[in-house]
């Protein structure tokens, strides 16, 4: 099982280099989330490289909202995301599998009873 936090999408980013002695292209990877309009959640749009958060936001604007696709942006360092392990997928999500009583359709209600 994976215990170290790993980026959600990237396998490559690893630990980003220290910016001080980083070669420019060692810029860390950022995940970009876009709120497409008020009332909706931010949704993952993709990723990009940037030296810092401010530049990541600017790059995200240019890359993911060229056609007014967003009213708000989040950028998160990919390395900060902890993801569940795909190998354990079944075991990890299994507890929900045998609990159909968590769904309203589990219950039988007599004909003619409304607003329930």
């Amino acid at each position, binding site marked *: 099982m994976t215990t170290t936090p790993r980026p959600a*999408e990237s396998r490559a980013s690893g630990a*980003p280099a220290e910016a001080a002695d980083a070669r420019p*292209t060692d810029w860390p990877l950022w995940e970009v989330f876009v709120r497409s309009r008020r009332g909706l959640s931010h949704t993952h749009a993709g990723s990009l490289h*940037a030296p*810092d958060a401010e530049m*990541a936001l600017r790059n995200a604007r240019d890359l993911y909202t060229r*056609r007014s696709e967003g009213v708000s942006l989040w950028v998160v360092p990919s390395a900060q995301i902890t993801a569940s392990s*795909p190998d354990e997928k079944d075991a990890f999500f299994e507890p929900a599998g045998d609990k159909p009583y968590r769904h309203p359709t589990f219950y039988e209600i007599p004909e003619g009873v409304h607003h329930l």
Partner: protein
Amino acid sequence: MTTIAPEEAAQEAAFDATVAAEERIEPRDWMPEAYRSTLVRQIAQHAHSEIIGMQPEANWITRAPSLRRKAILMAKVQDEAGHGLYLYSAAETLGTSRDELLDKLHTGRQKYSSIFNYPTLTWADVGAIGWLVDGAAITNQVPLCRCSYGPYARAMVRICKEESFHQRQGYELLLTLSRGTDAQHAMAQDAVNRWWWPSLMMFGPPDDESSHSAQSMAWKIKRHSNDELRQRFVDICVPQAEALGLTLPDPDLVWNEDRGHHDFGSIDWTEFREVLKGNGPCNEQRINRRRRAHEEGAWVREAAAAHAAKHGKAGR
């Protein structure tokens, strides 16, 4: 014969089942090494094509005939840069770094579509590229939106949405020229004459010579054969050319009632292979320009990194 560890056999079975069920493979899933390397090669080549493809059109930005056309062309070229970035991101999820990919492009170890090794001689070429080159790209790319690898498929969805403007602006540009003066009409026709055959080559070698096709189809990276997509493109273009009042430069192009498709002349694959080998009209120019842009942009990247370090805001 290689022996496969039982654990790997189980992983391979899970992979096969996921692909067979039309579900997507995601970055952290186990995948066969050959699937990974095929995707890296294809996505990288695709990404390189997007950014090299900025050059032939950017050539005309300063000489666009109106502010409207100039703004449109800048937006299109900027989109192509964006497409490159979506695709480099997708490739990175497979465990390659962007550095490595750019390096391979700059040293000629990875390719880009050979269509971009042709020159843009007149303003009408901007129209012909939008209509035919982006059109062929769309025909290729729409099925890739259902590619078995999730990040690539998602990148393609974004790209395809943006491409339709590219094709339409090119078509409108050609239509304007075609309906203009005799000289403008002739310019449009000349551009179509030069771009038609290279556009058909964009679908790759014929099926019986295409080395990677069968495996890519089995992995559902690819959904249709090269020849199938090429035929689809020809059939789409014929009525569009008619509406433009322009002809396609192929005397053998004719509707075949029995097949329900257009027959068309044979493609000069010698030319294709020559351009691929590096002997096209602009191969050297494109790659030199790309390298120079990268080198000359180094100080900007360094300054941004230094600024981030100084203010302690580097993403970690």
